[in-house]
């Protein structure tokens, strides 16, 4: 018989060994010697935390009661792991890219970083896991009582307490060293891997001993197996249910998610675990049925089948083997509790305590408060509270039968997260509200149909199961709406999963996700496609580098924050100082913080110091699915073709203008030749007459010579005008503008035309003199314009016409209206009179060449002003506009007219126009 002191001694020694291994591994990792600590083997062994004390002892009990049903606990994980390419690989990739800290974090991050959802998942996980932790404590104390009945000195409850306390110490020591929850806990993982080896060795050793030592070979062992254990009835609805639940649990259980996704450092490790973990499970299961069958055969009928692993070696007197088995069970239970409390404490501190703290210290978060120590303290406190809860649950529930089924109940509880999780990574359409409603509904049904009935005895309502609440039979927890004849587990799973999935799909189809949700959905669903795209910069925010640095310092610690910012600055190509706070940097920082405090809290904290958060439509489109991208692509093509069309139209217009210009030039040349030819012809003919007829009477000869002289003068004037116009239009020379008084210029023009007007009887009325009529111009050229206008009036207004000169000061300049009461200009000719040789259209100028108005307009435009013909009912009103000195138009005219086009006024090359000229008729262009 083994003394209780020996048991205590062995267990203590084992615990010391675990502490030592964890300590050494942690130290090794800190020194950067990671080699085998990061091997796929350690990763796989750490995943075997799936096998708890419940499976270590309980699987044999289950096999003794229901045959191969216990295998269903493992078929689910086997299917999930060999199907890693489908699902786990995606989770691991997302977990790494988004720096996911827990399953609650993943779900909340996917659904728009919703903290409400994170809280719901956390509460669900805590509610489901607390009894599960209690189950481990129970299996531990139960195993001790097998060796040393209570009267020998170990009170089982006391043992439970000290175990819980020891586990809390271990978890706090090695599980909360870093604030970064996304970082690997090397010490813990290594200790867990060691425990995985121990429990496998223990079970296989007991199995080998039972089969070959006690049973006499495999054939003998199975010879008198009860036939009920292999009956086809064992593979019905319950088999299906348990397989599904175990498959869901291996992903959704907080501790499984922790070791599989959060602690994963290399995706390739998953490829190894994909076959190694099923192999591990196979080895664990191999001897379960033989042990159960042998136990049933050899042990007295009243023996607890859950303890066959211990009682069989003890019965055979193999004390050492029994001790090894005890240590194996101890390992299974402790490793589960350690990892589960780490995972749960991260969730509780990140999603419940942190948001509350953030809200409480909203005002001073920017400046003060060390988030880091708060975070660590809250994690440590959570660990203690969680273990205390588990211990209390174990003490209060007491009876072992109540706890026996709690493992599967916990599976069914966390399975409620599965629909939102799967939809979250495969379906963009799943929305936050849908996930919230679905998880809440599934949770509620699970509590009602499975969790509540499990402590019926403690509730003091014994009639609930049999009769339903208030005697309503349709609401009986195990036969909801009359669904009878199904075992409670399948019943609960059916209702909770159906409602869960239905609500998730239904609500998703009628609610609209926010931009942040859509962004996260795209990042999660298309994680394999997105990784090639540049990370970050989907969300536009503004913050200062100093604020960001302070925030990082307070959460990550001074040294890591400094390292991070130096690296960021280097990435931006800066040699010193803080990096630029662009969108990509803020997003990167938020991800880093999410690795410590979870996505929702990180988002909220960054949101406190960054302003103006928007998610651009362009960013959403760029990460949209392929259909949307094709639509966007064709949309862009359409836009481009429209642009091309517009360009083509512009080109066509320009071409038309060019052709017009060419035609005008041809017409101009023809006109010029014609104009030159007329005087030339008369000069030639008269000089011929003079040469050939020497006996002409002198007075006739003088008259002829007078005509020749007149005609050559006209020719000279014409050539002068053409040269002048060409000079004006080309604008090659910057004109020297001076400040002149407009009234003076008008005086000069009137006196120059006095003889002309007197002869034609033109009556001239002039408006009151303006005092301040200063403009920027050239005196002579300006006078030329007015002389031209007055002589035009003489020419076209007919005899005894009236001419009104009105000077008006306008906003930016001065206008002079020259109005006569003649026949005016027909609308069709309004612009054409400014063209060269307008006489071709019947506006014959008997003495000029028809270049007066084009020249005048060119002069005005060179001054930065304009000459236009105003619309009027009677007579012609020419408006001369000049900018005042100092205005923009005047300066422009004075500064650089040299670059003007050679096309000239008549072709629509617009001079700088002033506001006052807006009512003028538009040019040809």
């Amino acid at each position, binding site marked *: 018989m083994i003394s209780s002191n020996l048991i205590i001694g062995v267990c203590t020694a084992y615990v010391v060994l675990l502490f030592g291994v964890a300590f050494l591994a942690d130290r090794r990792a800190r020194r950067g010697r990671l080699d085998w600590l990061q091997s796929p083997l350690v990763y796989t062994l750490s995943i075997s935390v799936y096998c708890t004390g419940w499976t270590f002892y309980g699987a044999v009990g289950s096999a003794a009661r229901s045959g191969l049903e216990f295998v269903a606990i493992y078929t689910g994980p086997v299917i999930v792991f060999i199907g890693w390419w489908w699902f786990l690989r995606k989770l691991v990739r997302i977990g790494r890219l988004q720096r996911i800290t827990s399953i609650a974090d993943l779900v909340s991050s996917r659904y728009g970083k919703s903290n409400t959802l994170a809280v719901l998942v956390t509460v669900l996980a805590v509610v489901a896991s607390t009894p599960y932790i209690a189950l481990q404590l129970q299996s531990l104390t139960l195993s001790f009582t097998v060796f040393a009945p209570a009267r020998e000195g170990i009170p089982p409850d006391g043992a439970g307490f000290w175990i819980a306390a020891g586990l809390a110490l271990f978890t706090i020591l090695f599980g909360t060293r870093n604030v970064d929850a996304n970082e690997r806990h090397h010490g813990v993982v290594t200790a867990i891997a060691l425990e995985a080896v121990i429990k496998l060795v223990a079970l296989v050793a007991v199995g080998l001993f039972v089969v070959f030592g006690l049973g006499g070979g495999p054939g003998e062992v*199975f010879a008198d197996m009860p036939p009920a254990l292999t009956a086809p009835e064992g*593979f019905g609805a319950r088999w299906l249910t348990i397989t599904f639940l175990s498959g869901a649990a291996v992903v959704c259980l907080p501790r499984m998610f922790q070791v599989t996704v959060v602690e994963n450092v290399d995706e390739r490790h998953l490829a190894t675990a994909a076959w190694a973990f099923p192999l591990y499970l196979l080895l664990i299961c191999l001897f379960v049925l033989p042990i159960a069958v042998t136990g049933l055969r050899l042990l007295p009928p009243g023996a607890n089948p859950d303890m066959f692993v211990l009682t069989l070696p003890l019965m055979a007197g193999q004390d050492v083997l029994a001790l090894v088995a005890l240590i194996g069970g101890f390992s299974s239970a402790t490793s589960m509790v350690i990892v589960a409390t780490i995972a749960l404490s991260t969730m509780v501190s990140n999603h419940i305590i942190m948001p509350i703290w953030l809200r409480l210290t909203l005002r001073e978060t920017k400046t003060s408060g060390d988030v880091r120590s708060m975070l660590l303290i809250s994690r440590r406190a959570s660990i203690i509270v969680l273990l205390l809860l588990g211990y209390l649950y174990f003490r209060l529930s007491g009876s072992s039968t109540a706890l026996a089924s709690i493992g599967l109940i916990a599976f069914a509880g966390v399975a409620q997260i599965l629909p939102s999780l799967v939809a979250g990574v495969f379906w963009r359409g799943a929305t936050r509200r849908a996930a919230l409603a679905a998880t809440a509904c599934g949770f509620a049904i699970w509590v009602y149909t499975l969790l509540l009935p499990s402590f019926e005895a403690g509730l003091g309502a014994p009639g609930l199961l049999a009769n339903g609440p208030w005697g309503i039979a349709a609401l009986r927890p195990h036969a909801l709406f009359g669904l009878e004849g199904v075992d409670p587990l399948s019943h609960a799973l059916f209702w909770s999963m159906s409602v869960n999935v239905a609500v998730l799909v239904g609500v998703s189809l009628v609610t609209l996700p926010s931009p942040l949700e859509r962004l996260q959905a795209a990042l999660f669903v298309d994680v394999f496609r997105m990784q090639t795209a540049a990370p970050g910069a989907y969300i536009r925010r503004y913050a200062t580098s100093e604020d960001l640095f302070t925030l990082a310092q307070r959460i990550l610690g001074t040294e890591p924050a400094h390292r991070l910012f130096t690296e960021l600055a280097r990435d931006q190509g800066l040699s010193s100082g803080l990096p630029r706070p662009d969108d990509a940097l803020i997003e990167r920082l938020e991800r880093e913080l999410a690795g410590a405090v979870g996505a929702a809290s990180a988002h909220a904290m960054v949101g406190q110091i960054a302003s103006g958060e928007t998610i651009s439509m362009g960013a959403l489109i760029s990460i949209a699915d392929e259909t949307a991208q094709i639509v966007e692509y064709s949309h862009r093509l359409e836009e481009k073709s429209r642009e091309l069309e517009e360009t083509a139209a512009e080109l066509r217009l320009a071409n038309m203008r060019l052709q017009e210009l060419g035609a005008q030039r041809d017409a101009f040349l023809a006109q010029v030749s014609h104009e030159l030819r007329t005087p030339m012809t008369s000069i030639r003919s008269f000089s011929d007459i003079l040469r050939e007829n020497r006996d002409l009477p002198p007075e006739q000869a003088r008259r002829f010579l007078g005509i020749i002289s007149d005609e050559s003068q006209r020719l000279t004037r014409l050539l002068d005008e053409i040269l002048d116009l060409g000079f004006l239009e080309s604008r090659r020379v910057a004109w020297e503008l001076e400040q002149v008084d407009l009234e003076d210029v008008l005086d000069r023009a009137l006196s120059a035309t006095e003889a002309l007007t007197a002869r034609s009887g033109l009556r001239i009325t002039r408006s009151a003199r303006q005092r301040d009529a200063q403009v920027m111009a050239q005196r002579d050229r300006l006078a030329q314009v007015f002389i031209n206008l007055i002589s035009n009036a003489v020419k076209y207004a007919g005899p005894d016409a009236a001419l009104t000169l009105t000077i008006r000061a306008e906003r930016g300049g001065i206008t002079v209206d020259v109005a006569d009461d003649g026949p005016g200009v027909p609308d069709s000719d309004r612009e054409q009179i400014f063209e060269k040789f307008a006489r071709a259209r019947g506006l014959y100028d008997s003495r000029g060449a028809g270049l007066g108005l084009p020249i005048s307009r060119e002069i005005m435009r060179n001054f930065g002003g304009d000459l236009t013909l105003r619309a009027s009912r009677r007579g012609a009103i020419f408006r001369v506009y000049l900018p005042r000195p100092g205005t923009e138009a005047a300066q422009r005219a004075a500064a650089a007219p040299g670059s003007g086009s050679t096309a000239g006024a008549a072709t629509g090359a617009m001079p700088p126009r002033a506001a006052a000229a807006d009512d003028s008729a538009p040019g040809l262009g």
Partner: protein
Amino acid sequence: MQAPPSAPGHAAPPAGAAPGDAPGPDPGADRHRGRQLQDRALVLPLVAVFLFMPPAIRLFAGPQTLLGLPVIVLYVFGVWALLVLCAFRLSRGLARGGEAP
């Protein structure tokens, strides 16, 4: 005016299969093999579900034995071992194949 551009005809020109960027004897076969490996990874869990789930597994349940061992025990652990073997070979192939779509 010109004729209006025909919008759908111009939209999304096919990128076209990159013509033979690998100089090997049959580049298509390599790519196909990678694709095939991934397809196998997708099919394997389906096979597992089929073999482990009721209609199929019930065929082997019952009192019959083979070499003194219950047939159902041999079946369950045999399938299990086979799945582990397949997953082993597959994961090695996929790890060598590198990155997937």
